[in-house]
């Protein structure tokens, strides 16, 4: 019983992980990881600041997704 429960828990965590990654929700977490290594000791942007910066970047660098 416990084994099944554990397996279900793992599967659920996997699904959440995948959705967060694929939807871009986990992007800020990756930014923090990246920042901690590249700029140790400095304060990273807050999540809202990061999202704004990212939006601005995407606006100026539109990616080509397929139109057909």
């Amino acid at each position: 019983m416990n084994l099944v429960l554990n397996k279900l828990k793992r599967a659920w965590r996997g699904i959440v992980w995948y959705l967060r990654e694929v939807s871009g929700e986990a992007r800020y977490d990756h930014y923090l990881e990246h920042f901690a290594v590249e700029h140790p000791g400095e304060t990273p942007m807050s999540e809202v600041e990061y999202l704004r910066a990212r939006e601005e970047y995407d606006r100026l660098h539109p990616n080509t997704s397929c139109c057909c």
Partner: protein
Amino acid sequence: MTNVASSAAAQAPAPGRLEFENDYTPAEAERVIRNSKGLPVGVRPKMVWTWPKALLWAAIAIVGAIGWSILAVSRGEQISAIWFVIVALCSYAIAYRFYAYYIQMKIMRTDDANATPAERVHDGANFERADRRVLFGQHFAGISGAGPLVGPILAAQMGYLPSVLWIILGVILAGAVQDMLVLWISAKRRGRSLGQMATDEMGKFGGMILSIFLVVMTAIAMAFLALVAIKAMASSPWAVFSIGMTIPIALLMGCYQRFLRPGRVIETTLLGFVLLVLDIVAGGYIADSPVLAPIFTLTAPQLVIALVIYSFAAAALPHWLLVTPRDYLSTLMKIGTLVLLVIGILIANPSVQVPALTELAFTSNGPTFSGDLFPFLFITIACGALSGFHGAVSSGLTPKAVEKENQIRMIGYGSMLVESFTAVIALIAAITLSQGLYFATNMSAAQIQATAGESYSAEASPEANAVAATENMQVSDIEGEQMTTTWESVDENGDPVVYEGEEALTKAAEDLGEQSIVSRTGGATTFAMGMANFLKSYLGGQGSLGFWYHFAIMFEALFILTTVDNGTRVARYQIGEMLANVKRLKKFGDPTWKPGNIITTLVATALWGGLLWMGVADANGGINAMVPIFGISNQLLAAACLMLVTVCVVKMGRAKYAWIPVIPLVWDVAVTFTADFQKIFGPLSYFTTAANYRAQIDSGALEGEALANARAALSNAYLDGVLSVFFLVMMGVFLIVGIVVVAKTLISGKVGVETTSEEPFVESQWFAPSGLVATKLEKKVQREYSAKLHELAQNAEAAA
């Protein structure tokens, strides 16, 4: 450049994972690639055969072969649509495992010791490693669109066999090869775009041609797909309301994410999806209401105006407010609906109504597209088998995010196989409807009148005329008898009844919540009818047919609206960049310059809006005239991509294997140039059409609306003709440039990395598995990698 510590932080190994025991077998140990620091960074690809594996592949091959022979030889008997799914999946599996692997070994020679752009640049923005499974999903969302849903539907008039052959063999030998190889050349060149790579490898002239071609192609694709959406929405209050409401839903989602829950994408998407379902349900009530229905009943020209205004607003509004949230919705719909559909087909187990080849396969005047099977069937089924536009996507974000070179096969080839599978599903949707229904839906009013001939009556209902027209067409069904119009439904008492003839068409429209389904050309209506039939089989039953039909229309329309925004935006930047090449107009290169933005948006919108307007104004419905333009331009772009790949392959000194991109290139050139030639010269050409209209106008026999229609058709035909000439000249020149570069390289014999723009080798510090599922060996290497990283980090600390 990344140091070891950064990778360690990015993948902080869980304690349990550190338990690495050196338990490689000798054969396995040989395959592990280690870098100079002793880190295991990859596994050399190798086919390891065991008995169970060999038996499994033999079984797949046998099942696939049985499936193919059933599809190819069955005559005069019913077959199940599930065979199409089986045939596709078996063929894909074999192609992916063997052919794509062969290309990987012989041409790409992927090497996990070499760092990918994500690792070389690693800027934390676009050049950031993405897990291979995540990247697969994102790449698929990037390449998939409404294209594969439209082509197979239109092609179904000739029977299923040529379509299914081209969709499956085409993707295996051409489409997926192109996607994977473009992804590969771009990943070897720091994720450069198609235009930049063409400039680097084939000179400035080649690059310029490709850039111009991309803009024109984007405009044509947008116009064509928008036309498909408009054909599905015109005079359908349910569709207009539910699709129109996606705009306020997106605004709401945008605000929710911006102000209430910043960054909570999944939550926002779920909220949007719930609203979307409620919206589709509400559409049904709107359509039934005598007060509200007329407000949302719009004609095609009105919809064009609405769409153009909308796309302008979308370009002006901030991104987070409208475009981003709708992207979420359409991505969710793309992947979710595909899964629902496959389950639906398996449960509904529909039987195929259309024969392998219909009589129309041997003529050139079928209603959905005109021209002979070769070449026009192959350009009508564009995106599901071979799509040039994917080259632009494969050289966009994906190569910047891929972790290891060995993953390119899975991401590039694999995603395109899924795209092709979507096309197979669209084909199933079309061929499981009765043929009479299919033709009644896919013939324009003018075609119905012409085909019905003497049976046509201006007083009769469109349904009666459509049935008269299909009775006049000498087309057989799968059992070899004259095709019929049928619709399976239930009567007032809930008993199953098969309606026939005119009744079938009216009953179908009633079940689907539409006023009429006659002359709903463009393929979207047909696809939605098929899809509704699959989904109602296990979700909601007969009563849910109207909901699922409009769900399907929504599914296609969301793709198309995303295309309209995205395309306008991309075309705007491309136009800006092109203008910036002119000295005096340098300012256009600056994307923050507002006046420049407005001008380039205007140009982009005028391009596709103009084409769309002409399509709608066309008396024959426009689809028939637009399909070849769209298909030819998209597949000419594919020829350009394959040419570019060939140049790179030859420059790397792998000319021996150049046949891999050259075979699809030659086929594609044969198809597109023949089609384009026939569209410029001869009886099918746009100029002949134009001359006919000119003669009619000059004769003075036309008056009023007929005269206006003829004038519109005349200018359409001229524009389409000019575009065809433009394509032929541009791509002819591009191919010649490519052939010259190849010839020069072969004659001089100078090959190798230094002759191309490929980046020199840089040692990798990352490890990640190659396939969708990590192998046993890869799991062992992962453990060793984590342990070694940990050790290296500790050593570094101790040294400090």
